[in-house]
Every structure is written in C-alpha cells, then in structure tokens.
C-alpha cells in the first residue's frame, strides 16, 4: 500500500515539469498571437463583416417583431418616428437655449456642431459587445482614437476606443469606463426664455447599455425630464450634443452630490449608421 502511494506521488512529481513546460509554451503562444493582434482582429472583421452586417440588419426587424407581440407593430414604428422627431427638437432646443443665454460666439460653435459643421465620416454598425460597438470604418478612413461618435440627430454615442485598418471599436457612453461631462438643461417651457443657472454634472456608464448622472451639487435644482447635453468641460466632445434625459432623481443628504437615473438617447438597437467627427480638436 505504501509503495503504491509513493508511486502515485512520484508520478505526480514527474508530471509537474511537463505541466509547467506546457503552461510556458501556451503563454508564449498567446504572446506570439498578441504580436499580430491588430491584423488578426482586422482580418477577422473584414472577412466576417458581410455576415455580421446581415445578422445585425436581420436583428432589428426580428427584435421589432417580437417586441410587436407585446406592443403592436404600429406602436413600435410610431414610437421610433416620434423618438427621432423628439431628438431633433431637443437638439434645436439645446442650441436655442445657448443663444438665449447670451453667448453668441459660443452658440455659433454649438449650432455649427448641430448642423454638421464638423467633418463627419459615416460608419455602419456591425456588432455590439459589453457596451463596445463595432463600426466598419478604421484608420484607412481617417478615424483615430478618441474621436466622438454621434448619430444624425446629434445624439452622442461614445468615442473611438480602438482603431484598426478597416474597423473600429466605439466605447459607448454606457460603458463602465465611460465618463462624460454634461450640463443639465431644464425641460420646462417656462425656462426656455429665461437664462437659468447652468448645472454641471457627469454621466457615468454603468454597463448593460445604461448610465447614471452623478456629481450634481446638492443645492442644484434638477427635475425629471431635464435634458443632459455635453458641456465640453473636458474637451473630449463638442458641446451641446444630446446625451440623455433624467428619469429619477436620487438625493441623499449624507452624500455631497446628487445622483439621478437617466434614459440615454443613444439607442444602439436602432442605430444602423453613425457618424465619427474626425476634425474635432481634443485636448488631453
């Protein structure tokens, strides 16, 4: 019995060098793979893009179909139309509010932003994973890291995270690593003509295509329905891009800042084409 035990231990001892060598070889192969990570990822994406685009395109009507089982097809289409129309109107409100607040020069810049004053590159959406979107434009199309990505309604989706030759990854504002400086604009019509005190805050991604509003001073007055637009405090994004709408305020006297639940305007599921702003100057 004892000898059997010894044999077993010896066998295990003999196996350890083999396992160790196997692990080292395996890690070395992964290291080698990472030398060619950009061409591997780019190559795979280029080859799979037609299938991926087909799946992506097929996903939207399929999703609508199943959604329609609960909501009705008409409501779904109508809702989509209203959403786009609403975003356009909110975009115009955002620009007009800047004008009423008196800074004509700054509002000219924001208006030019809203009216495609920036050089835009249109990109098709081909995939989504963990709040990272794949678009079919890469370094060959003038895209580079950090560039803002918006929709045609001027809704901010995120910024370019990684660039490959033929495609790029976009970090959505709902990504857990995303932080966007925003300002709160009152939704009420009364506040439209009167300049109100600007409230700055931060939209932080919480994953799962959701985000929340943070760092709003406790004494600041914000309401459900207020619209959040980019403030460009960190110069990562042009100002006055639509971000979200406040849905529920979470005020806690023990915390130095207010938080709020928000509903993002950027709906990835219906985004077929997005625009990369390629000539926005960023300061890091």
């Amino acid at each position, binding site marked *: 019995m004892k000898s059997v035990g010894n044999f077993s231990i010896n066998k295990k001892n003999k196996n350890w060098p083999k396992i160790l060598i196997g692990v080292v070889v395996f890690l070395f192969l992964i290291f080698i793979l990472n030398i060619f990570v950009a061409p591997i990822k780019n190559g795979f994406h280029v080859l799979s893009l037609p299938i991926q685009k087909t799946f*992506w395109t097929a996903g939207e009507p399929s999703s609508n179909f199943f959604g329609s089982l609960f909501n009705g097809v008409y409501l779904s289409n109508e809702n989509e139309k209203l959403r786009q129309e609403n975003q356009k109107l909110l975009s115009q409100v955002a620009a007009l509010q800047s004008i009423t607040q008196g800074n004509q020069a700054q509002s000219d810049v924001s208006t030019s932003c809203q009216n495609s004053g920036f050089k835009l590159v249109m990109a098709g959406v081909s995939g989504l994973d963990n709040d990272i979107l794949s678009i079919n434009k890469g370094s060959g199309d003038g895209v580079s890291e950090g560039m803002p990505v918006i929709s045609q309604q001027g809704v901010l989706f995120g910024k370019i995270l990684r660039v490959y030759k033929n495609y790029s990854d976009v970090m959505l504002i709902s990504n857990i690593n995303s932080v966007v400086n925003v300002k709160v604009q009152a939704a009420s019509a009364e506040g439209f003509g009167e300049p109100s005190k600007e409230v700055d805050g931060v939209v932080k991604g919480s994953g799962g295509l959701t985000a929340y509003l943070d760092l709003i001073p406790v004494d600041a007055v914000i309401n459900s329905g207020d619209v959040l637009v980019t403030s460009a405090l960190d110069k990562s994004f042009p100002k006055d891009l639509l971000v979200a709408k406040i849905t529920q305020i979470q005020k806690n006297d023990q915390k130095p800042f207010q938080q709020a639940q928000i509903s993002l305007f950027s709906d990835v599921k219906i985004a077929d084409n997005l625009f990369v702003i390629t000539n926005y100057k960023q300061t890091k």
Partner: protein
Amino acid sequence: MWQKTVVIIFLFIIFALLQNSFFAHFSIFGATPNLVFILFFLLVFFAKKETNYQIIYLSVIAGILLDIFSYAYLGPSIVSLLIGGFLLKKAQSMLKSGRDSYPFTYYLPLFLIFFAIYEICFLGFNLGIIAEIIYNMVFASAFFYVYKRWIKYTA
C-alpha cells in the same frame, strides 16, 4: 474526427457573430446571451474523461473569438476558459463519482457558478449580472436538451 472539429469551429464562429450582431437587438436590461461561452461549457461538460485534451483547443477557439470582439489583447478569455474548463472537469469527476451520466441537475448549477465567476471576473459585480445570468441560463438550458437529443441521434 476532423469533420467534428471543423463543425465545432464553424459553430463557434457563427455563434460569435450572432451574439455580437443579431442577439444585440434582443438585450434585456442590457443582457445578451453569451452563445460562445454556452457552447464551450456544453462541449466541455459532455467531453469524455479520456478526451480532456479537447479543453485546450476548445478554450483557444472560444477564447480567441471572445477576445476578438471584447478586448484589445488576445488571451484573457483563452486563459480563463482553459482554467474554467479543467476546473469543470474536476468538479464533474467529484460530483459524478464514477457514474457516466450527464444530468441536468449537475449541468445547470455548474453552469450558473462558472458563468457567474466568468462574468464577475471580466465585468465586475453589478446588478446587471443577474439579468445576464438569468438570460444565459435560459439559452444554456435549451442548448443542453438540443445537444442531448443531437447526441442521441448521432450516437
């Protein structure tokens, strides 16, 4: 044997493309099915003890595809699936205690544990993970019965 490998690679690729494009439209509370992980888990779960070496190539294929879509580098998913795969076989050998059967009662709890650990390791803990686990559990359960039936017919 090689035909089986080709079919598996093909399935992994199709599943990876589906989960990143088609199923992105079917997210519930931001959760989407991780078909590649489910297929990997299923294949490892049903792998016979003498074919444990398959875990290595399954980890490499599934891991590369997951990393291509998710991370800047190749490796995190490969290594985690490899470790997870061998731990799963170890857990199975402890649970099965010699019986050569694959009951659903073993499959589902093991899947939930391994998937939860995988998600927490890569995404950190948040409430969204609960939706992610429940959503993937539904797919994993369906895949289990499809696979068992498929094996019944191909065996």
